[in-house]
């Protein structure tokens, strides 16, 4: 408990330090506005609804790419798991996958799908899907053999085995994949909007940066940071529960 308290103190102290440095002018307003001002600006843009359209687009795209990469990644993982030869061939490629800076493919998607949500979702799915595939393979690998044998003894059908034994046993590992897919979808969508796009929170931040409009820029940055932190905390709580169920 005292660790938690200490952590809160550290974070609050850092924010206060930045606040102080901004207020006394060590950090000029052209570089960074004070954290309290960021909160005020965030309140203003939410109240005025100026960026509502951008915010909706971004979070819709993140949701779409998360769902797509989880479903497709799970399906691909199951197929690869059931074909050991294919799996042997593909595994070295999966291990190197995240070494590739995926964003260099974003321009290719732009020429294929044009500037818009389709290419943004495509790059986010490309970034997120492999973590789901890996998590699915890992989860299926770790199903204890005794559970499957028990299913055989009860003469369960293939479908029943999958739904009642394999899926619940693999869930904690699958959830790790879901968590990573959410994180990668956030990164994929916002970074693509940032680099080249005509709408969305990432675009709005880049636009405000080009106009030296620090008020809006920092308010939107704060919005993204808050949303990501809340979503992560929520996913971590579920994760911890699933992990503790596994130890039982």
């Amino acid at each position, binding site marked *: 408990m005292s660790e938690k308290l200490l952590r809160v103190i550290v974070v609050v102290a850092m924010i206060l330090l930045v606040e102080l440095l901004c207020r006394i002018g060590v950090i000029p307003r052209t570089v960074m506005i004070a954290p309290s001002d960021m909160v005020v600006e965030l309140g203003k843009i939410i109240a005025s609804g100026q960026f509502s359209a951008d915010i909706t687009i971004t979070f819709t795209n993140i949701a779409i790419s998360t769902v797509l990469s989880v479903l497709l990644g799970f399906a691909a993982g199951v197929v690869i798991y059931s074909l050991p030869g294919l799996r042997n061939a593909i595994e070295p490629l999966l291990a190197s996958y995240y070494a*590739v800076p*995926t964003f260099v493919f974003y321009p290719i998607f732009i020429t294929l799908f044009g500037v818009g949500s389709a290419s943004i979702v495509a790059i986010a799915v490309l970034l997120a899907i492999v973590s789901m595939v890996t998590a699915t393979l890992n989860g299926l690998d770790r199903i204890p053999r005794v559970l499957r044998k028990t299913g055989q003894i009860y003469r369960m059908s293939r479908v029943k085995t999958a739904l009642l034994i394999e899926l619940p046993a693999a869930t904690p590992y699958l959830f790790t994949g879901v968590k990573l897919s959410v994180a990668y979808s956030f990164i994929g969508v916002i970074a693509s909007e940032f680099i080249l796009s005509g709408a969305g929170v990432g675009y709005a931040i880049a636009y405000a940066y080009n106009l030296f409009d620090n008020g809006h820029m920092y308010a939107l940055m704060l919005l993204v940071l808050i949303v990501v932190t809340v979503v992560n905390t929520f996913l971590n709580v579920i994760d911890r529960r699933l992990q503790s169920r596994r130890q039982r």
Partner: protein
Amino acid sequence: MTSLATSPMPRSAGTLLVLLAIVLLWQGLHLLVGASSLASPLQTVTKLAALLMTGEFWLNISETMRAFVAAFAISLFGGIALGIVLGLRKLAGNVAEPILTTLYSIPKVVLYPLVLLCFGLGISAKIAFGVMHGLIPITLFSMNAIRQMKPVYRRTSQVMRLSPSQNAFTVIMPAILPEIISGVRLGFSLTLLGVLIGEMFASQRGLGFLLTGAINLGQIDTIMAIALLLTVFAVTCNVLMMRVDRRLTHR
């Protein structure tokens, strides 16, 4: 693919077949959507060869590499040092770990304007952005490596009264090296990604800048040539690090 599943083929041959399938798929897609949307594998390789002949391309490569090497060196040494300190001091480690994990999962690209405002347009902003991506994973892996180190090592070094630097270089480093390599692999790719995103958003030189320029001019073959070059580079380095990793863990 079913024949692949049944025949007892050596692992690397299967991987080559998959790579061949990817190239065929690429060629098929190229025929489907047309040369103006997607260059063929052959066109891409020819373009890359042509680009590699020009001196200007090498200037951009060296610019990106300079930023990348500096960022990676800072992430590597900073991350390992920070990880060792946080791993040895339990309270500091426990307090810092959730903060670091949260920082790790935020899309750092939203913070790039802040980096640009602090460092200005130029190589230092790219380096800083690369470090932001690479430092935290290396720190987290090194920290966990130390925490999972067998306590007997630490006790032995205490009994032998090793000095802190002797302890660090002769006991701790060799013990945690295999885990650190995994962190370094992740840090390597993320640092490269950070430097490239930095260049794509705001830069005057470098491969990321060439990419954005090619998007604006609609030069699909240049885009794909650069993407191919970066992919080959990243995958080669990753495979080399995995080899080192395997050798260390099977020691």
